[in-house]
């Protein structure tokens, strides 16, 4: 029998050649004579969100009045500032889908499905499936509808390949929002998008041109990682929402009332400005704020804001009417010096223990009648609730005071000594939480130890707070 195996050798050698080009993609020097490689462009499949930028916008929600990074024009700023979070709760809006402009920014993975014409075998369209915000990108060369055609939440999208980028143009979208705290886009907005596969990452470059509310087109990018476990698919598929899912979330509110802030009534918006030391001029966005030249001006505005804030604050001790005056002021949680234990497991987006809040700011101030006002704002990354507030006004005599926000119904605050207070929380009259607040002798650090159990969930923590700018 003759040996023909040598005939296999050239074939095997030739088959190995494309690998050299791929090596170049990895930065190897083996194919220095070939300064390019070819890559696949497939975008269809399952993709998992990456929240490594614009986290607050896309995941946990932004504070009222945070329009940083948006090239809003005057009309855009006015409309954005009028938005109240309660808007999402009115019956007319509870089932409203995101528009095509915001939909891909939301916290859901996506599936991109390529649909082939059964007669021509040409790609007819891509379907982007993400629950309530499905989109179709027509690839068959059909024109956009005439100007008078009805607008839809998804809009009308056509696509064309430009090399390794799928370029998509979307018109006929209904008016909506650019992000979930109110900045609007009009129904005249036109979006140009590029879907680009980069290894196992999918990047979407989106350019939103809206003469209604933007002073210049808004460019932003969104990234996903290839989801190789298709069965996971969680969060995908149609979301039921209709008359049977709509509930009255704002009991007692007049019918058809639309929550809003009137022009100039921006007290709530100042929380964001105070929390991060960003003056309103910058917080409300605008073209100027997007460019490097704005940084020196921002620094000046921040210095002026700090000066105004400091000047407006009474000298320490003047407002004291109860207890140790040094408790009064703003306190910022020092997360690295704090410890949170819970009987259930939570994991944060950044891999940390999700039981620990990302940010907590307490404002303690005196009010008339010898009482003390406690306002505690907490921002948690691990879920989608954004910032929540607990507030109460209590006399430091151990009497129960009603609580607004949170599960606990009353807090009793009792001064033990000038550096110590005790706090007791109750639900339906039963004690569910106890805590001790201890002020350091120099008044710079506040240590809070808490232990509680609500239902079957037990928790304990040691929180260390530092004075925040006062």
């Amino acid at each position, binding site marked *: 029998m003759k040996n023909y195996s040598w005939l296999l050798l*050239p074939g095997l050698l030739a088959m190995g*050649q494309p690998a050299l080009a791929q090596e170049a993609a990895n*930065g190897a020097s083996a194919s220095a004579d070939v*300064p390019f*490689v070819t890559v696949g462009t497939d975008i269809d499949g399952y993709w998992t969100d990456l929240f490594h930028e614009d986290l607050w916008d896309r995941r946990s929600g932004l504070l009222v009045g945070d329009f940083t990074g948006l090239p809003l024009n005057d009309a855009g700023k006015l409309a954005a500032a009028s938005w109240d979070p309660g808007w999402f709760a009115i019956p007319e809006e509870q089932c409203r889908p995101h528009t095509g402009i915001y939909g891909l920014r939301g916290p859901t993975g996506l599936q991109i499905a390529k649909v082939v014409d059964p007669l021509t075998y040409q790609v007819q369209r891509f379907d982007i499936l993400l629950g309530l915000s499905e989109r179709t990108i027509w690839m068959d060369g059909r024109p956009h509808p005439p100007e008078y055609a009805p607008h839809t939440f998804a809009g009308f999208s056509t696509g064309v390949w430009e090399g390794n980028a799928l370029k998509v143009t979307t018109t006929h979208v209904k008016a909506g929002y650019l992000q979930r705290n109110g900045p609007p886009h009009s129904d005249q907005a036109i979006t140009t998008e*590029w879907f680009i596969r980069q290894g196992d990452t999918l*990047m979407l470059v989106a350019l939103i041109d809206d003469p209604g509310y933007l002073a210049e087109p808004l460019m932003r990018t969104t990234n996903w990682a290839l989801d190789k476990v298709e069965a996971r698919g969680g969060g995908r598929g149609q979301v039921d929402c209709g008359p049977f899912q709509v509930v009255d979330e704002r009991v007692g509110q007049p019918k058809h009332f639309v929550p809003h802030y009137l022009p100039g009534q921006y007290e709530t918006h100042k929380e964001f400005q105070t929390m*991060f030391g960003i003056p309103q001029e910058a917080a409300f966005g605008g073209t100027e704020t997007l460019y490097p030249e704005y940084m020196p001006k*921002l620094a000046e505005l921040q210095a002026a804001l700090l000066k105004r804030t400091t000047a407006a604050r009474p000298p320490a001790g003047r407002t004291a009417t109860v207890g140790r005056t040094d408790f009064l002021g703003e306190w910022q949680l020092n997360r690295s010096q704090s410890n949170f234990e819970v009987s259930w497991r939570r994991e944060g987006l950044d891999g940390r223990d999700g039981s620990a809040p990302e940010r907590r700011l307490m404002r303690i101030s005196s009010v008339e009648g010898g009482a003390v006002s406690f306002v505690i704002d907490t921002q948690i990354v691990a879920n989608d609730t954004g910032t929540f507030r607990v507030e109460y006004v209590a006399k430091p005599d151990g009497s129960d005071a009603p609580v607004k926000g949170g599960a606990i119904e009353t807090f009793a605050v009792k001064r033990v000594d000038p550096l110590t207070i005790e706090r007791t929380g109750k639900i339906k009259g039963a004690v569910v939480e106890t805590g001790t607040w201890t002020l350091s002798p120099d008044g710079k650090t506040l240590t809070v130890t808490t232990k509680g159990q609500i239902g079957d969930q037990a928790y304990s923590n040691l929180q260390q707070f530092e004075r925040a700018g006062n």
Partner: protein
Amino acid sequence: MIKRVALLAIASTLVSAAVAGAQGQRGVDQGPAPNVPRTLRAAAAIDLAGTWVSVVTEDWRWRMMTPPRYDYAAIPLNAYGRQVADDWDPAADAAAGLQCKVYGAAAGIRNPGRLNISWVDGNALQIQLDAGTQTRVLRHGARPAAGEPTWQGQSSAVWEFPESSAPGASGGAGRGGRGGRVPTGMLKVVTTNMRAGYLRKNGVPYSEKAVLTEYFVRTTAPNGDTWLVVTSIVDDPMYLNEPFVTSTHFKKEPDNSKFAPTPCVAHK
């Protein structure tokens, strides 16, 4: 049976050679075909040269100003990374001459500023960043990194084309191709040997073991504006739980008159 195997092998040889040809390659001994560009510049899929200004529409609060201490949200730091970040001491950085830690390759491009991109030679692009007065060189065929790590590390670059528009392919887009299609593709850059630095101004670290993979993409808007988008994927086994992915965009400027180098600053 043996004849079938032999014919199959010959057919396989022909098909594989055709595939290699479509990718601009010939036999290992022969080098690239005459019509296939041999340098990075000749194969350029897109024109990256010029001055580009960052337009900060994303992560504004983390980029236009220094975030508060402990604000590491969105960065997949592991426990050790958090511990190092917690110990951030800008005064100590300044005293030690480490003001440039946030201007290194892994994150320098996130600093608001301008890029000036130009060709150094046929196989190397240079990126000058005015924020921190830094210079990067993206070279095709860079040898494996050696020597002391630097802020900008050592970068190896290669163009990535879709098969339909690769240089040398029918209708290919590169200068070596026969043209006729939209010239597009992207530059992939892998950077190693970086000196340890910061991913965010408030001391979020990356280590010398980090590997940075970038994709440079150029698009043209309907209004004629030209945009550069750079995807940065930082893989750092020391401080990150998973690769950290961001995309940063720049608008092209008509000239470099606004390019204004500033020194490194240890942020407070």
